[in-house]
């Protein structure tokens, strides 16, 4: 995911604007770019969503298979989350196995979905200890202009919310909607010098010092967090980010319903 180093002029421009509370594209610090969500985009998937967050474009598909449960959770379905930063999406993405950045992204999305207990995995058990539904949550980035964390998470929950368990074609009874319990929302900020801003563009990411991703549920409880990059947040900043995240999440959650 290594992007070429940004010119000092462009960098200075972002810094200077931010010092007066402004962003290059005119957004408020806690304002998201335009979000377009198209669900059921892929017929060959059990659930899917294409999400555009400004110029960032991701496609998420859910495939379900019948398989064996893990030994220590014999009564639960299995969730596998995968992100693919395919070279179609950016001159800096390379073919081959996912790099550390792609792995971190996949694991953060996975924890947001898993730890929010969004999916009722026990309802995806077919036969205790023998047969459960295996869910492959596969996320492809098609066009990369920053904030993959939030674009991918929105795509993941939108796809899951339209997923139909393919019971019939697997001789496991009637089809039914993916059993969901919660509606988690994830938001990501970056810190640039002393400014903290939501939904960074690629240019903003390039000059960012630190990143903080926060996942909360519809009750306003924390479900997952991930700090990234080589900068630091103070404890106060962390608390402010969480407060702002709870506020911003309400609008994002409304997109889903």
């Amino acid at each position, binding site marked *: 995911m290594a992007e070429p180093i940004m010119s000092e002029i462009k960098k200075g421009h972002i810094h200077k604007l931010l010092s007066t509370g402004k962003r290059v594209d005119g957004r408020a610090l806690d304002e998201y770019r335009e979000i377009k969500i198209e669900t059921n*985009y*892929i*017929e*060959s*998937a059990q659930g*899917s969503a294409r999400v555009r967050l400004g*110029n960032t*474009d991701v*496609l998420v*598909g*859910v*495939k379900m*298979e019948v398989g064996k449960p893990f030994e220590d959770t014999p009564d639960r379905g299995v969730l596998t989350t*995968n992100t*693919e930063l*395919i*070279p*179609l*999406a*950016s*001159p800096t993405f390379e*073919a081959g*196995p996912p790099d550390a950045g792609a792995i971190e992204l996949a694991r953060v999305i996975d924890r947001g979905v898993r730890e929010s207990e969004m999916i009722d995995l026990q309802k995806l058990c077919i036969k205790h200890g023998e047969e459960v539904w295996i869910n*492959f949550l*596969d996320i*492809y980035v*098609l*066009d*990369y*202009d920053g904030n993959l964390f939030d674009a991918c998470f929105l795509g993941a929950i939108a796809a899951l919310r339209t997923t139909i368990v393919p019971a019939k074609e697997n001789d496991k009874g009637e089809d039914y909607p993916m059993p969901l319990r919660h509606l988690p929302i994830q938001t990501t900020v970056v810190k640039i010098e002393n400014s903290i801003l939501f939904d960074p563009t690629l240019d903003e990411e390039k000059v960012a010092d630190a990143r903080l991703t926060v996942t909360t549920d519809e009750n306003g409880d924390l479900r997952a967090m991930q700090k990234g990059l080589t900068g630091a947040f103070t404890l106060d900043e962390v608390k402010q980010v969480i407060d702002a995240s709870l506020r911003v999440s309400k609008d994002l959650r409304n997109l889903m319903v």
Partner: protein
Amino acid sequence: MSGMTTDIDLIDDNGIRIDGRKVDELRPLKIEAGVLKRADGSAYVEWGKNKVLAAVYGPRECHPRHMQNPAKAIVQCKYNMLSFSVSDRKRPGPDRRSIEISKIISEALEYVVFTENYPRASIDVYIEVLQANAGTRCAGLTAASVALADAGIPMKDLVPAVAIGKADGQIVLDLNKEEDNYGNADLPIAMIPRTGEVLLMQMDGHMTMEEFDQALEYGKKACQMVYDVQKDALRRRYTVQGGNGDVDDEQSQNNNSEA
């Protein structure tokens, strides 16, 4: 041809196929150029239930270095199916089939690109199959040449492609998934209509010589049709650019990133 058999009639007594087409009829084809922001050129193809994206990056420095050709650019295509594009989830990453398809599409594209303009460079073409329903290599190649044109790369011509096949013992144009699964032969070709030059051709299955001649006839006509849709997509892309300052900017951005 998978070797599977079925009781389904693929063509009824009136010569109508299961999706309602006649034997020499294409599935609906829609092409849009310039659909991605980061890529230097791009195209989206919807062909029946196939959904395919193509992006072009370059000419840019060729990696790995030992692949560089001091006399000309090389065209490196990567054809890839998304995991959920097919019935059974496909494991991410290239398999032998996609490596072969990438190779023959690269070769077909290299014929039309004026590669001698860009010594040592690489022109990278990425084809991503979002949803697959038979004929994805032809849809991908069709999308790729539009994306090359969208990237402003000088080319002899566009490359339309189509598959002809045999189902229920009859030659049919543009196989769908059921015909591909239960049919008797598959013959994907790419041909430049203006010159009649064949740039890609594969065949598997069973065809008599008469059937093969029939298939080529269908293929010739269909390549012309696909070509017209390609041209139209580029014309629309161009028109939009002319009338829209915003898109103009984006285009000039692309030019910068090529430089």
